[in-house]
């Protein structure tokens, strides 16, 4: 295989969105990759190879008889016991002494630990770098997917009251017994939740909230409040008192990077490049200004900068070059 194909194969294998396509587990990814293949007939062999490797070979695994396993374990434990007894008494004494020391050490450690806890600032912070996406499970079982260049923080004692800067997707664990709420606070607003799936983005000096499931209540920075139902989008910027509240088709509009794919619906290239800049921290410049008005509809994988750019190039007929830590957007040759 040629070098280029090799790189393509590797990027397929490492792309969660591609894996979703292979296992048919995400609608957006299936649509995206089916479409991608149609537009890249020359790469069909590489796609096929990546698919084979990911699907692999299913083996019937021979299980070890559990009775035999227990017997073997008993033998091993016996042998461990026997070895302990075999050892001369001096070493046993030493072991005892060591246990004493360990005991004291443990007590001292525990004491230091308590002091540490009492003095410590109990705020927990999770931060992502550019291009990094992490999944977090909070103490209460809530799942947070944190996009690149974002941060959440909360008090150690209460993981249901979160501050967010950047971009995050929340799958809140409902606690029906106490009806405990969950809060996400940004500089613009506070989201009040019972148990639901939603997306919060604070880039661009405003906060966008997109609700996928359940219901949330927004307390805006200007004192206003809003109730949202699934499929609704609210955008609010403090100071400007400008609120957008509308119904969207959550499957097709706005960025849904949580499956490692941006979904754009007729969005201008300049807007799309802003997403890229925010995710990867690389500024961009349009060399040919008229290209800013080109629009994109469809999915763009965002897990890997190279694939992401190549998808944008292909769908807009442009060329994007990385030069001096800047992305230059040019006309296709």
């Amino acid at each position: 295989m040629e070098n280029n194909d090799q790189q393509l194969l590797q990027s397929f294998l490492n792309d969660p969105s591609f894996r979703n396509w292979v296992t048919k587990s995400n609608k957006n990814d299936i649509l995206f990759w089916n479409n991608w293949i149609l537009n890249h007939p020359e790469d069909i062999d590489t796609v096929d190879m990546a698919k084979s490797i990911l699907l692999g070979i299913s083996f019937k695994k021979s299980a070890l008889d559990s009775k035999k396993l227990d017997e073997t374990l008993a033998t091993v434990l016996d042998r461990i016991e026997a070895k302990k007894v075999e050892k001369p008494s001096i070493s046993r004494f030493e072991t005892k002494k060591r246990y004493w020391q360990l005991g004291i050490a443990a007590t001292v450690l525990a004491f230091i630990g308590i002091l540490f806890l009492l003095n410590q600032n109990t705020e927990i912070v999770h931060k992502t770098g550019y291009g990094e996406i992490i999944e977090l499970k909070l103490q209460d079982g809530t799942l947070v997917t944190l996009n690149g260049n974002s941060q959440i923080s909360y008090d150690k004692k209460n993981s249901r009251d979160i501050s967010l800067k950047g971009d995050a997707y929340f799958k809140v664990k409902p606690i029906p017994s106490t009806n405990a709420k969950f809060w996400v606070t940004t500089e613009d607003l506070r989201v009040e939740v019972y148990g639901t799936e939603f997306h919060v983005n604070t880039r661009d000096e405003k906060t966008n909230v997109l609700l996928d499931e359940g219901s949330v209540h927004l307390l805006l920075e200007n004192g206003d409040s809003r109730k949202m139902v699934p499929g609704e989008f609210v955008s609010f910027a403090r100071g400007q008192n400008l609120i957008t509240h509308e119904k969207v088709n959550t499957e097709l509009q706005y960025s849904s990077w949580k499956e490692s794919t941006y979904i754009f619906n007729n969005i201008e290239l300049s807007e799309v490049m802003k997403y890229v800049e925010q995710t990867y921290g690389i500024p961009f410049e349009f060399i040919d200004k008229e290209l800013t008005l080109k629009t994109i509809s469809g999915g763009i994988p965002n897990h890997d900068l190279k694939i992401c750019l190549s998808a944008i190039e292909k769908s807009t007929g442009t060329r994007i070059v990385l030069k001096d830590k800047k992305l230059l957007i040019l006309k296709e040759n």
Partner: protein
Amino acid sequence: MDISSEKALWQFFVGGDLNAFSTLFKHFYPQLHNYGLRISNNQEIAEDCLQDFFIYLYEHRASLHHVRQIRSYLFVSYRRALIKKLQKQNLIQSLDEAKDAFIFSQEEIMLGEELSEQRSKILETTLNGLSPREREVIYLKYYSDLKTPEIKEVMNISYQSVLNTLQKAFSKLRNRLETAAIREVLKK
């Protein structure tokens, strides 16, 4: 058992907890047992060596708190111990010349929607036509469900070698399947 509970158990075990040791034993013994059988083709040696290995782990637990990649650590250490033992008994010089290591049988290949009896026969022949090291990659990846970085560690080869092996296996497989399909058509 997920990675985080493996890690938690490991820390308990390192602290000397026999319960944690027993749970780890029950979890890893069957996987390592099968792996040892594949390497050695000798049940007695594989089992003796594996028991000794677990006793070694228990006795040296205090020095094992730094182990982070538990699965690859266990696979790589057991592999090393077993090969040493086989070499001592002059059974093999190296794993490369152990021609019958990691042989697959048709019976253990799962038949799915797309895999007929005839295809699984082709799969068996193709897999066993690979070199022992290549078969080991396939075994660790799809039988033991090790991740590529773990395979890298265990076999001490590069990511690229793992990938090349997988590519080689699947392109051979595809060629053979295509040839078989053509033969089928010609027969009619």
